[in-house]
């Protein structure tokens, strides 16, 4: 299943300046780690859920954002039970869930081009030598190429399955990395050809 990178809408959150959303995200994420305890997670969780409702996003959008991290969250939960207890394991996983949903709320309500503008604005006061446009474009390309890399992975997996190599990690990773790097080269040429300096 492809990940929806943006959900069209005209809510207050959709209209809020990207730089405000990015700064708010940074504050929420930082607070979750600096202000320890269930109250901070509960407040952040309520804020994020309210944000989803305000933006007109549905529970399936939240679930789709969490699904890719599902196995990692289960692994973290299991490890934390082993080294601490079930209460602390729940706390750690709940914190990650709120973090992921907060980030998803920003990406689902911000177009990539707005995101680029937001990052550029956020870097406005950075020193001269910081390549602001390049950093902004690089971040946007990461989002744009998630589906592309996913489709390359599917193609490579099918090709290796046809050769009976579906369990061979090297046979899967080498073509994936080579094709991704080749694509990156071609994309940079295409960007260059469209007058990007």
């Amino acid at each position, binding site marked *: 299943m492809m990940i929806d990178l943006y959900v069209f809408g005209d809510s207050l959150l959709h209209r809020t300046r990207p730089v405000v959303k990015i700064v708010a995200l940074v504050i929420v994420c930082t607070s979750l780690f600096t202000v320890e305890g269930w109250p901070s997670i509960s407040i952040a969780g309520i804020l994020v859920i309210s944000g989803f409702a305000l933006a007109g996003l549905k529970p399936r959008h939240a679930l789709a954002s969490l699904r890719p991290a599902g196995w990692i969250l289960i692994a973290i939960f299991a490890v934390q039970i082993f080294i601490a207890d079930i209460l602390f394991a729940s706390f750690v996983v709940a914190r990650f869930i709120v973090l992921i949903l907060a980030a998803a709320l920003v990406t689902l309500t911000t177009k990539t081009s707005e995101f680029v503008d937001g990052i550029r604005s956020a870097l406005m006061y950075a020193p001269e030598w910081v390549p602001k446009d390049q950093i902004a474009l690089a971040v946007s390309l990461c989002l744009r190429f998630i589906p592309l890399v996913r489709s390359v992975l599917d193609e490579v997996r099918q090709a290796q399955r046809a050769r009976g190599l579906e369990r061979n990690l090297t046979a899967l990773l080498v073509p994936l990395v080579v094709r991704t790097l080749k*694509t990156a080269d071609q994309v940079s040429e295409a960007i*260059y050809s469209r007058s990007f300096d």
Partner: protein
Amino acid sequence: MNVSVEKSGVFVLKNINARISERRIGVIGRNGSGKSTFARLFNGIETPTSGTISLNGSSEKKALRRHVGFVFQNPDNQIVYPIVAEDLAFGLKNLMLSKSETSDRIDEVLHRFDLTHLRNRFTHQLSGGEKQMIALAGVLVMRPRMIVFDEPTTLLDLWNKRKFMAALDELEQCIVVVSHDLDLIVEFDRILHFEDGTIVGDGSPAPIVSGYIESLQ
């Protein structure tokens, strides 16, 4: 003029002299003959080892990129943003156009090719034919004087290929098309035949294409 391109000690193009004045030019040749390298020179993607490329007297790279559009073989590598309208706006942003002019130009180019319904679609959800049309629209929206196509129909089915050919016919700009698909270029004004980094045939389609077919036998 007198353009050569050397890569890893091998000359991919050797002393090429060509003046492009016709409206539709086809470039043919075997794999590795240098035709794609030749095409990439126009937009400044490729830099000549010696010689110069100039457009209306200017050989500055920025001017070449501004006035020469390039359509790649695989539109997936050309489309930068996840939403069609955003992607079309990408090149215009680099030209520092206002929001309203950007929007007008996008509407105009989408309407011209009957693609308005794709304006807010995700680019990764488009069909191959739609993606190639969006790649072309992304170039046209910048209003280039010349457009170079590098094997633009290779990944298209017959229906989409015909649709793309019809779109090419409508273009008023000078177009240079590198292609193995002889149907695509057979009615062009001029054909250049490349072999081993040099132009071995230059003229109207009929004799050049038949010479190329003979050279393959």
